[in-house]
């Protein structure tokens, strides 16, 4: 899994190396490092590291190791996204639907409507961060129920 780790590094030699060691010993493969020296705040430099971890457990261990070394992990954002197709049969409030998808950290990559007013059918292709698909489906199922529509997901 690909992850963007944002760390707050104290601006002192050897601190970045310490964080990188924790990533390496936990199987992380570093793709890129962005060191924002232009954004030093109270002696801390924000650093974004893109890493490929073998699994979520390795990421958790690396985060614990980094924080154990006194380096705050500001964010660990999963960069991998699942692309999934969904169909909703029935009348849908598209604006609410798109808003909820966005609120849940997903993105609608494609949307098409067929059937007209008599038999409306909405197809969505949604990009969802890893681990966020189930909560999204749960929310959309509830919305579909409210609208007396049928949500059809992959599976």
């Amino acid at each position, binding site marked *: 899994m690909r992850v963007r780790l944002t760390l707050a590094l104290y601006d002192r030699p050897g601190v970045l190396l310490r964080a990188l060691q924790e990533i390496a010993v936990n199987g992380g493969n570093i793709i890129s490092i962005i060191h924002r020296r232009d954004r030093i705040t109270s002696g801390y430099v924000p650093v974004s590291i893109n890493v490929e971890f073998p699994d979520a457990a390795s990421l958790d261990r690396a985060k614990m190791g980094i924080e154990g070394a006194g380096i705050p992990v500001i964010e660990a954002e999963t960069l991998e996204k699942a692309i999934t*197709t969904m*169909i909703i*049969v029935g009348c849908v409030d598209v604006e609410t639907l798109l808003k909820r998808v966005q609120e849940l950290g997903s993105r609608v990559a494609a949307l*098409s409507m067929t059937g007209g007013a008599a*038999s409306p059918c909405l*197809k969505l292709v949604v990009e969802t961060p890893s681990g966020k698909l189930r909560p999204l489906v749960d929310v959309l199922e509830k919305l579909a129920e409210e609208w007396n529509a*049928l949500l059809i997901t992959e*599976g």
Partner: protein
Amino acid sequence: MIKCIIVGYGFLGKRLARELAAGKIAGVKLAGIASSKGYIYRADGLAHEDLPERIDRARGFEEAPASEMIRRELADLLVELTPTNIESGEPGLSHIRQALEEGMDVVTANKGPIALAFEELSSLAEERGSLLLYEATVGGGIPLISLQKRCLMADELLSLRGILNGTTNYILSRMHFEEMTFELALREAQMLGIAERDPTLDLEGVDTALKLLILANSLMGLRKKLSEVKIRGITKVTSEAIAAAKESGMTIKLIGVVGENGLSVAPRLIRLNDPLCVHGTLNAVNFNHRILGNLTIIGEGAGESTVSALLNDIYEVVRARSRRL
């Protein structure tokens, strides 16, 4: 010689009675048949020519409940084939309970009792040293239960998903390939005898849910009830939805799932190259095992093929009894 009685004399009962009366399973004698009207019983066995079209017009007809015949001194094996009742499981549940209490072995194709009272009936069978076999309740002739219980018993079944209802699969297949409306595909299925006159249980996903419960409780050691299965049927699936799926290289199938999110039955999008994507009246089940990984099994899930599952279960009773002697 094992004396067998069949309770429930519809399509399956008649077809099975013919096989048994013809001596297709050595060591088994068909001693009685019963319908809701009454029964006929002959201790020395019923021959092919004794099998009536209607029991109430047969020689030796007794106008009495089938339960009179479910007695250890009259029979060793009950084949219970009365219609499925999803509310109470009756009358099948009482028939099976009575037979097990009598120490008889039981083979059934009746989903109701097994889905609603699996734990009670399997405990009763174990307590009385009887066999309770129900391969024919799920997937017709596809050996799903015996496959797991005999060939894969050492591997852990983690999850499963499948198409378990031929009627809905036929309707969705016709909508996919012939671009029919739901209503037209249903009418065609009814004309061909694939859908029942009242197809509600199939269309609303309840039949799939019952089968899913049987698989989950008997193969995965779960103790789920029908009320715990999230069920959505196919009545709202439109031609437009099928066309939209098709555009994306997919179709819509009624899929039952037992997985980390519990038990559910719902129309789902599946890719046309998914091994589960079978058409017409076929059923398909994908097992996911801890060691073996994925295994998909496909076959006819109803009708004539169910007789094959019943005969195999009866044969298993013969084998078990010969081991006991």
